[in-house]
Structure formats: C-alpha cells, structure tokens
C-alpha cells in the first residue's frame, strides 16, 4: 500500500511539474510571435481569446486534427520516434531545475552535468527526423544541425566550467546559493554573452536557424512532418528554449534569488523571481529573432570554433588564476 502511495505521489509531482511547463510553452510561443509582430509594427496573434492568448491552443487543436502523413520511403519506426525523443528530452531536463530552495523534483549531485547531457542528446531528435524522412532537405537540415549543435555544445561546456570554478559543486542549488552576494553575470559578463549566443545556436533559434532555413531548405528536418508529430517537434523546441533560459538564469542570474535581499524584493516568492528571469531571457531570445539576420553557415562554424572556443578557454584560465591568486577557490568537499 505504501509503495502505491509513493508511486502516486511521484506521478502527482511529475504532473505538477510537466503541466505548467507545457502550458507555459504554449504561452511562450504566443509571447514569441507577439514580440516578433510588435518589432515589425504588426499586431501579432490577437484574435483568439484575450490578447490572443489562446492562439497556441487553437493551433495545437488544429495540429491534433490534421492527418499524420508518413512518407512511403521513410524509415517508419525512426520517423515516429524522432519527435517523441525531441519532446521527451526537452521535458525530462526540467526534473533537476530548482524553482526555489525546496521546490525541485530531483536534487541530484551532478545536476548541471545532467542538464548538459540532456541538452546534448537533443541533437538526436533532429538527426533521426532528418535521416528517417529519406528526403534531401530534411537530411541537409539534420546534417547542418548536428554539426552546429555539437560545435556550440563545446563552448557551453567550457562556460559551465567557468561557473563551476567559482562554485566548487555540480549541484544546481549550490550554484544558485553561491551567487547570494554577487550574481555571476557581473564577474563573468563576457561568458554570459557567449553563453547566450551559444544557447541561440544550440536551440536552432535565429540568427542561427540554419537547420530549418526556410529560404534554402523548406523547413529543414521538419519538412516531411505533419499534424501532431510536427507539433511535438515544435513543443520540444520551445521547451528546449525555456530550458536554456532557465539554465542561463541559474548559472548567471542567481536563480530564484532576488537582486538585492531587502524588504520589497524579498517578499516576492522565490519561484516568481526564477520565472521573471526566465521570461526576461526569453524576451531577449524573441527580440533577437526579430532584429538579426541569419548567419551564413561557414560564419556560424567560424564563430563557434575560432572565436567562442578560444575565448572561453582563455577565460577559464583567467578565472582560475584570479581565484587562485586571491585565494578564493572554493574548498573541496564542503
């Protein structure tokens, strides 16, 4: 009986995490299109529901009722598996994101490594989708995206090392608590910028949306997908973007901590701060989508390997030397 209660409790907890994420993904899609519209002096979606808030739900409903077309020459198992993998990976990563000091599903020792591993697995959904479609545009999109995501992962990894040098722990809660006095965005500001740009590339957002560059590749790896399967790719993509924003706010913006621990700021509950920071980063994502033109592919690779990688490596050395010289290195085992 006890185990049953335990299992139901866990399922309840997971649902309590997943449903808000899915709803906020829907809202974030609306926000994205709205910001995009406003930058271009359009109105954006504003018809369905108040301010057009229900637009994404209407879209999702449309996708559910559309027919799923599977190309005759596609590898059917992998073709169906690809959007499932994308969405699952985007959602399981949220298990370790702490919304406040005691509001986290799984508080594991290697939280940041888990996040990094899951986000690096995200490439498989795209690769599988592109290859299993057995069509040239999806394949080109998948190849591009694989190279792009692997390249930018490297610099994200090194940026994480920068932060970890200052923290001395891989636990996400410890990373946030280490920023109690000073958010890492101040001493590591260049790394924050590099992280943000790499996150754009890692989630295939403009200006790095070459895997689905509509002017050259129709819709990249999603070309052959329709109906609910396309919607799953779409949801997974936006859940990944939210995840990157959450990662950015945990690593650099102090997670759930208020900017200054004084009266009017510290009565706002901790998860609200986290959500505010995620929204702020997402707003930047949305504005950048609207204002920046797409990169050329060789420029993208050059930026990743020849600029970001050496720069973040040099910054690792700088951070380590600074911490060592001023005897500020975090003590092991604490």
């Amino acid at each position, binding site marked *: 009986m006890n185990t049953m209660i335990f299992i139901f409790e866990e399922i309840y907890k997971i649902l309590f995490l997943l449903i808000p994420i899915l709803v906020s993904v829907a809202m974030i899609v609306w926000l994205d299109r709205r910001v995009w519209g406003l930058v271009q002096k359009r109105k954006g979606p504003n018809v369905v529901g108040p301010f057009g808030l229900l637009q994404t739900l209407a879209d999702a409903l449309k996708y559910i009722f559309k027919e799923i077309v599977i190309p005759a020459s596609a590898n059917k198992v992998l073709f169906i598996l690809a959007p499932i993998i994308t969405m699952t990976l985007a959602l399981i990563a949220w298990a370790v994101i702490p919304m406040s000091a005691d509001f986290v599903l799984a508080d594991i020792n290697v939280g940041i490594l888990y996040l990094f*591993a899951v986000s690096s*697995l995200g490439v498989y959904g795209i690769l599988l989708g592109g290859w299993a479609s057995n069509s040239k545009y999806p394949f080109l999109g998948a190849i591009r995206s694989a190279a792009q995501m*692997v390249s930018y992962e490297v610099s994200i990894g090194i940026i994480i090392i920068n932060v970890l040098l200052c923290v001395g722990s891989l636990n996400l809660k410890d990373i946030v608590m280490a920023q109690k006095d000073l958010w890492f965005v101040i001493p590591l500001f260049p790394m924050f910028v590099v992280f943000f740009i790499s996150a754009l590339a890692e989630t295939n957002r403009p200006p790095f949306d070459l895997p689905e560059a509509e002017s050259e590749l129709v819709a990249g790896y999603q070309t052959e997908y329709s109906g609910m399967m396309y919607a799953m790719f779409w949801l997974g993509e936006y859940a990944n973007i939210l995840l990157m924003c959450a990662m950015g706010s945990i690593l650099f913006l102090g997670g759930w901590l208020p900017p200054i621990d004084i009266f009017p700021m510290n009565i706002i509950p901790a998860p609200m701060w986290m959500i505010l920071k995620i929204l702020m980063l997402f707003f930047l994502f949305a504005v950048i989508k609207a204002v920046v033109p797409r990169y050329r592919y060789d420029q993208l690779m050059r930026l990743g390997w020849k600029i970001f990688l050496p720069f973040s490596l040099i910054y690792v050395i700088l951070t380590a030397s600074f911490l060592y010289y001023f005897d500020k290195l975090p003590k092991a085992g604490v």
Partner: protein
Amino acid sequence: MIAHAFFFYFFSIMAIFSALMVIASRNTVNSVFFLILDFISVGCLFIMVGAEFIGMILLIVYVGAVAVLFLFVVMMLNVAQQKQSWFIGKKATHIPSGLLVGLLIFLELLVVVGGWQYKDNLMSSSTLIINEQISNTHQLGNVLYTEYFLYFQLSGIILLLAMIGAIILTFRKRDNVKTQSYLKQISRDRSSSVILEEVKFNKGVKVDD
C-alpha cells in the same frame, strides 16, 4: 530493493541486447543507434552503482559527441544498406582481422574477470583514502589532480597528439581558394570602395583596373 533489481536487470538486458544488435543489424545507421542505446544503458548502470559523474560523462562524451560523429560519417558515406556484401564477395578479408581483434578482447576480458579475486587485494593495497562523506565528483577530482596528476596530463597530451595527427592526415593544401578577410571587410569605408564619376557621352567609364 525490488525496484533497484528491476532497473538493474532492465538496463543490463538492454545493454546486452543493443550490443548484440549493433553487430546483427543490417542497416549501418541502425547499428549506430543501437550503439547509442548501449551507451545510454551502460551510463544508467554507472549511475545506479553511484558513479554518477562517470555515468554523466559517458553520456556527454560518447552519446553527445562521439556517436554524433559516427552517425555523421555513416550518413555521409551512404553505407546505410550494406546487404552483408562483406560476407558474400571474395574480398572477405575483414573477417580474420575482426576475429583476431575479438579474440584479443575476449582474452583481455578473461584476464580481468579471472583476476576478480585480486580486486580485494587491490583495494586494500591502495593508498587512497576513500571518504564516504563527499560526493564522488570531489573524490575523483581530489585524486586525479593530485596523485595521478602526471598520468592525467600524459593522457591529455596523447589525445592532443592524436588530434593533431588526424588533422595532418586529412589536411590538404589547396591553391586558388577564395577566402574572405573579415578585417578587410570591416575596415572598408566609403572612400576606398565608392567613387563618383562623371560619365562622358559616348566614352563611358573604365571600371576594371
């Protein structure tokens, strides 16, 4: 405890099954996907024994990077449908060398598994102090960067050499390649790139010079 056993058997059966499917599946791309599944199951087993750092690094390095490159190569070379031609044609030269490597690895495994009782002696003769209080990431770091510092650096240098070697092997110097100089592009200004010229009737202007 039952759940633990269940997950252990699930992941180990998954690992063995996918390892078999890597060599049994006819489609090379499917083989790579089974290899990935194998890596993931082994990573989960590592996490189950409490070596969470190694498990995660396995996922990041092998699944996140190495297997992507495997897939890349397999997809690009278009060797997806092998149709077992290695075993049908006369050039079945891969089989003896494959068998030799397999035999060697099997012998090595025998040595390791046969020497299982050495493990206790090995553990007791080790000078390492295992502190149960701190996480295994800290533990690894403490050992790796102090006692085994030299080996760590050496393995790093070996990897670096391998990388440089691979680059040199594949590098071809090509002539007549048009490249863009970013510095030149940025430092261009109006005076060096635009000229305003009066065009005389019936004479035109000379643009190439």
